[in-house]
């Protein structure tokens, strides 16, 4: 397998990081009042209560790394949480950590690494984003198939609701069924039920060994389906098992053809045995573990991103759909075999999706589709609203009756 050069990696990582910062949706600067920058939960409450009094919507901003995601939020005052930072509680022996919402994942990672631990939330988008935004958007990454998504890893949180109350769900301990679950309710709500101010998470010990290998993959859909079926019963327990499109493999400098990358962790014997087991399925080559972090920041500044998911048995077909979509839009695709979710990244030309990509997107309706980023014009046709049922509307009414928190981001603006 061809190796990437150090130089290209540096450039790629740098570009991607810069890209995410500039990916912010343009805001109506002239009309919007000055951004609010709280440094405490009391500040947040004050800002929300002020918004209620004036009926001014709020655009919740963590570190501003992913503002292009979700449906557009219009005419809102920004509440920026990059001043609400810091680790509040970290007792390594408990393997739990509590931090204010604006704390970056990078800061948490640095603190926990000193004790041989990590927060296994490694969401797409890298570590420049905040813990609060990761929880609010339920952002998952390559390890979520085994180590869990935010709903599994977050133990508790504090938020200021759209009625101006400070609420806490869950706690700091690893098991908790006290009361109705305000934690799960806020995870993935994109801030529309409350501005997250503090989050407690479960940590893990860093594995003794952490090695990644790439496995060559057949091109034909039926051959891939057969391989995936055999992998599911193989004696392996990878932290991640991700298929990468050929274009992505080339971008990452890992080679030229589609591969499955497995992240193998544990003690030396466990890793060696799994490597051996994978070698039964085809050519296996080593891949630097650092690849996972580069994969997480691969998105260009201006792009559409969609996830396609399906039952496991149909995933080869879903992957074929994802590959066609990526090819039509000159983009890249990758997919978690453990979760049966493919993710397609389609770069924009002049701020819009090429029409071939739009056509290909329309042809993906057989799979469950979740759109992360789209041109504003496509949201109404492709995914107008995810707060559509009576229960979801009731939840929104209960926690943000005035529709002030990120209005429209879930397509939930009152008609």
């Amino acid at each position, binding site marked *: 397998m061809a190796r990437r050069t150090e130089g290209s990696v540096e450039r790629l990582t740098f570009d991607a990081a810069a890209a995410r910062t500039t990916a912010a949706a343009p805001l109506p600067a002239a009309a919007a009042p000055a951004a609010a920058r709280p440094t405490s939960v009391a500040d947040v409450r004050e800002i929300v209560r002020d918004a209620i009094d004036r009926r001014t919507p709020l655009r919740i901003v963590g570190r501003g790394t992913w503002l292009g995601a979700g449906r557009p939020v219009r005419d809102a005052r920004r509440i920026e949480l990059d001043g609400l930072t810091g680790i509040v509680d970290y007792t390594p022996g*408990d393997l739990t950590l509590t931090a204010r919402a604006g704390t970056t994942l990078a800061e948490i990672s640095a603190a926990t690494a000193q004790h041989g631990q990590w927060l296994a939330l490694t969401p797409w988008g890298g570590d420049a984003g905040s813990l609060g935004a990761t929880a609010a958007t339920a952002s998952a990454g390559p390890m979520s198939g085994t180590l869990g998504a935010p709903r599994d890893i977050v133990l508790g949180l504090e938020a200021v609701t759209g009625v101006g109350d400070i609420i806490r769900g869950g706690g700091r301990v690893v098991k*908790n*069924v*006290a009361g109705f*679950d305000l934690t*799960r309710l806020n995870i993935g709500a994109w801030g529309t039920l409350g501005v997250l101010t503090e989050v407690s998470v479960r940590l893990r010990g860093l594995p003794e060994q952490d090695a990644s290998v790439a496995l060559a993959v057949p091109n034909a859909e039926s051959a891939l389906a057969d391989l995936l079926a055999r992998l599911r019963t193989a004696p392996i327990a990878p932290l991640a098992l991700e298929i990468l499109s050929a274009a992505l493999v080339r971008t990452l400098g890992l080679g030229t053809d589609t591969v499955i990358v497995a992240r193998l962790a544990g003690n030396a014997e*466990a890793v060696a045995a799994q490597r051996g087991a994978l070698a039964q399925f085809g050519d296996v080559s080593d891949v630097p573990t650092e690849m996972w972090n580069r994969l997480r920041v691969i998105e260009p500044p201006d792009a559409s991103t969609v996830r396609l998911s399906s039952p496991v048995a149909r995933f080869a077909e879903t992957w074929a759909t994802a590959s066609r979509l990526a090819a039509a839009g000159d983009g890249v695709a990758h997919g978690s075999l453990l979760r049966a979710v493919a993710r397609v990244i389609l770069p924009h030309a002049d701020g819009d999706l090429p029409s071939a990509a739009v056509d290909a997107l329309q042809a993906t309706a057989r799979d469950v589709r979740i759109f992360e980023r789209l041109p504003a014009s496509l949201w109404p046709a492709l995914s107008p609203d995810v707060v559509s049922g009576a229960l979801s509307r009731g939840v929104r009414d209960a926690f943000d009756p005035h529709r002030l928190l990120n209005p429209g981001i879930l397509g939930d603006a009152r008609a």
Partner: protein
Amino acid sequence: MTVASELPSLLAAIVGTRSVLARPSELVVYRSDGLPGYTKQPRLGVFPRTRDELVAVVRLLAERSIPFVPRGAGTGLSGGALADDVVLIGLNRLTRILSVDPVERLAVVEPGVVNVALTRAATPYGLHYAPDPSSQAACTIGGNVAENAGGPHCLKYGVTLNHVRAVTAILPNGEIVRLGNAEGEADGYDLLGAFVGSEGCFGIALDVTVRLSPNPQSVRTLLADFTSVGDAARATSEIIASGIVPAALEMMDGATIRAVEASIYAAGYPVDAEAILLIELDGLSAGLETDVARVEAMCKTAGARTVRIARDEAERARLWQGRKKAFGAMGRISPHLVVQDAVIPRTRLPDVLATIHEIAHRQRITVCNVFHAGDGNLHPNIGYDANDPDEQARVHAAMREIMAACVAAGGTITGEHGIGLDKLDYMDLIFSSESLAAMCRLREVFDPDRRANPGKVVPVHSCREWHGVRKAAWNA
């Protein structure tokens, strides 16, 4: 004709007369659940046999604005399934396993399917259902979903929430909704996450789609015995901090060991030990022995006298039987038993266990500790005689003190048993009035009339806009 007098016949028209219990004598068995100490008399019991019957029952009660309590096997330990003069809907006859899909590793079951029956159905495919409450031989999946049940193996594999992919539920108003998505990712608000653990207050599951887990390639079960609880607690903290994630890490103290060994569930635990740890490691065969050796060494360093490794499946099953039946074994000692369920940060195990010991000594009561040490999930059991008012008062005082100590250590009041009736009074210890009011609002989204499992989970006084418990329609 009042609702009270016509309801039995209306229900009987749906489920048949033999599935409606109205005479107090017939309902005696439903007056309590797994936690002795609370008794509430249901007004009526109705036991649908099919989904259609259940739907019709819930819709009838909705039309008449009649409150109800759903009940699975009644093994809960929080008084959550008690119906205080309202209708009890027994779900234990809805026992069909609708599908087991070994490729997707999913099963769809009715709410009354017994936990272990599901694992039995998955066994031919090399799969199992991971959450394993001690009551798994009797408790139902519907009840597990309502309580977000745990169990020893949740340390590594997660609680019920982590294993439920979708639920079809009937809301108290009779509407049927689908929560979650078994076909792919779910978008929008995590209503499934809100439903799991809602203790029967948000509706009734008509079917539950659960994840099945592949059986591990290898399992090793270790029994480490200690001459002090503190040493066992320190060994626990060491193992957790090491980053090895055991499948289970359970502790039993001396009083519990001796109760088990004196019962029909005797497991061969050393009766002169002051604490034992039951530790299970599982996963790929490769490298497992290395982790076993590390855990064994950590136990010995912390002061274990011996560490025994189960030689075969029979010995392993026997070691687990003693643990899972420990509550039952304690029933031989005292006529009444209370059990708590607090969770504390795991580094606080040694000092909180010492505090519990001190409280027990001062209040002159006997506390048996048998619990999920790896999670920090304590289960102090206090046996007593409810006919002795002085002892009862001391037990009550000790319970409050223990709970306060756990909360002060940064813990929570329940890890897997639920609030129910039993822990209502402790909710104020960990939640602000604003958080409790938010929970009330969430409940009202699912059940605006608060007819489902009335009076449970959130104290009545916490609901700001609470207008008093609605009188049952039949008393109006």
